[in-house]
């Protein structure tokens, strides 16, 4: 009895430790990168994406799997501990479906979205912090995998860990190699699993298959890879969204098609992208948002602003406005007199970074007169004239 209480207390303490480590990302964004790259499933998926990022940091877990097998799953993994703390109705039942699931996710990762990492337990756990940041229950959909894991646990103890988890499958695979045991999977099942992954990839890429749907208002974080590569490499961990200083990064739903579901997008309606912040560049564990210094980030284009002169109160109503000129950090809004002699704004696309500050503060209602479109995203903008 005492032993049981002690072990529960120990588990709670460990979960708290995980939470603190992940929570530190709000102050030190690079923590998000290191904490999630601990998982070897990110390492495997990195190979599918031709990016060999921080390989060394996942080595301890590989080593642990060699020495102690599933020790990580039973004793350390935060998602595992959560399941232990929640009562369940059934006893665990061991299968080797997880290897097939691993295979399916692996094949999906090669052809489309990086699903292997999307379903990684550490990444799933990290998504909680997006909800903590927004304090929004609507975003519970964002942690759907975690909720499903917990519900499955109620049905049967550690259902996810034993039969579904791709990271668990990876560790099982390492155990098999160590024991020189041949994995007895049926050829047809293997083929089916691979096919399932392909189908998932195909569903995900409907947008690419049926011609691109152009959404020119879908703005990616500063320094994001080109859209095609970005949706493949992003693991939807939500760290960029959690650490964002102004809160302009929000999870997208279907704006970018099926592929883009839960990927970050910039929403100038909520806030602007701060000139002196590169937290998302530091946080991204898979470098889908490039790692950049503050100076590099300041010069990278997110998009380009455009003014609708019929809606602009300076151009159409001769109001003394120019708020967009006031707030623009990059001097990209120039003054130009209209026929009545009122100073009016004009965008210099060479200087505009598309930070969305102008769109955020435009007083034209109900529709803002200046909006940012993802034109020229990822290009390097011209430097502002020195000293004005």
């Amino acid at each position, binding site marked *: 009895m005492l032993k049981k209480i002690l072990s529960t207390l120990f588990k709670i303490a460990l979960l708290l430790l995980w939470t603190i480590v992940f929570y530190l990302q709000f102050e030190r964004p690079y923590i998000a990168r290191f904490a999630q790259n601990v998982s070897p499933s990110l390492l495997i998926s990195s190979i599918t994406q031709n990016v060999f990022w921080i390989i060394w940091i996942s080595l301890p877990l590989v080593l642990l799997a060699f020495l102690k097998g599933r020790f990580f799953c039973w004793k350390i993994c935060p998602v595992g501990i959560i399941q232990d703390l929640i009562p369940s109705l059934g006893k665990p039942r061991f299968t080797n479906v997880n290897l097939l699931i691993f295979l399916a996710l692996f094949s999906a990762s090669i052809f489309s979205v990086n699903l292997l990492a999307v379903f990684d337990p550490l990444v799933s756990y990290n998504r909680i912090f997006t909800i903590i940041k927004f304090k929004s229950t609507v975003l519970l959909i964002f942690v759907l995998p975690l909720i499903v894991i917990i519900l499955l646990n109620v049905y049967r103890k550690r259902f996810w860990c034993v039969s579904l988890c791709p990271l668990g499958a990876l560790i099982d695979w390492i155990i098999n190699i160590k024991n020189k045991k041949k994995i007895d999977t049926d050829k047809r099942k293997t083929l089916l699993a691979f096919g399932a992954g392909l189908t998932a990839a195909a569903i995900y890429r409907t947008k690419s298959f049926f011609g691109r749907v152009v959404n020119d208002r879908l703005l990616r974080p500063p320094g994001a890879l080109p859209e095609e590569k970005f949706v493949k490499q992003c693991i939807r961990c939500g760290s960029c969204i959690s650490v964002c200083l102004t809160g302009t990064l929000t999870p997208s739903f279907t704006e970018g098609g099926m592929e883009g579901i839960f990927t970050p997008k910039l929403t100038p309606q909520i806030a602007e992208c701060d000139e002196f912040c590169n937290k998302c560049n530091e946080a991204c564990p898979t470098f889908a948002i490039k790692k950049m210094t503050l100076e590099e980030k300041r010069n990278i284009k997110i998009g380009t602003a455009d003014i609708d002169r019929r809606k602009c109160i300076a151009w159409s109503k001769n109001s003394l406005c120019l*708020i967009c000129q006031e707030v623009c950090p990059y001097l990209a809004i120039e003054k130009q007199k209209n026929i009545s002699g009122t100073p009016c704004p004009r965008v210099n696309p060479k200087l505009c970074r598309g930070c969305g*500050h102008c769109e955020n*503060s435009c007083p034209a*209602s109900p529709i803002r007169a200046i909006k940012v479109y993802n034109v020229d995203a990822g290009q390097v903008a011209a430097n502002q004239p020195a000293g004005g």
Partner: protein
Amino acid sequence: MNNKCSRRDFLKYAISGASLLALNSIPLSEKLFGQTKDVFAEINPHELYELEGSDYKKLIREGFDCCGGIKTFVKPGDYVVLKPNAAWSRKPEEAGNTHPDLVSETVKLCRDAGAKKVDIIDHTCDNSKSSFKISGIEEAVKNAGGNMVSLSEGDHFAEVTIPNGKILKKTLVAKQVLNADCFINMPIAKDHGSATLTLCMKNHMGIVKDRGYFHVNGLHECIADISSFIKPDLNIMDCTRILLDHGPKGPGRVKTLNKVIFGINQVAVDSLATTYFGLKPKDIGYIRIAETMGIGKTDVENFKITQKKI
């Protein structure tokens, strides 16, 4: 454009207005019915002090001494509110914000005079975390014993009626200003895209919630209207360095003047500051309108200006 008040807005304003009255009826009525403090009786409102020197902290100390000492403004146990310009993510040398040394020294003097609490407020245009940090004001103020409040985060506003307002009759103003025993306005003089220059009166846009309304309905008129309601106990104009173009955010050409203006009347202080830019007070719309509304005088030649070099 959007002059009509929707039902939701009306209810929002009515409820916040009612709660303000319930909460702050005493200080509000003082502001409304013009129970002026003895400060005004002692100092000629159109008397200005123009101090010059490169030690900015010393400028503040000397300035207060000229005005009769900090004790004239701050009594022990008072709640003091400072409104510097801290709205932009710009470094002190880029002349986007009030110089941190000026703010911190004022805070220190207020604390030494026995102020209960010193709040430094601004409704920032950039993200407040970023602008407070980069402007250097947050750190300087913290060391001096002040409390930085960002009006951009959380709900800090209460509705007020502006009796002399021509266009702006009702607006949401920061509660801190309404509750303050002493309100010191600390703007920086700089170029401004739409208002030509941003000075004392323009700085009041940093304590109202809906700035868009000003731009939509007539910027200069609204600034004059809010200035008829908000009357700072003291204006300290930072002209240590002024931004000549690409204002109000910059980066633009910066000219170092090493000057600070102390004055009670905001129109008078603004009028003197316009001369630094090579303009006449009446070139600026809101100064012109403020004079016709009787808020202050603009004839700089007739002012009693005390100049002091340190």
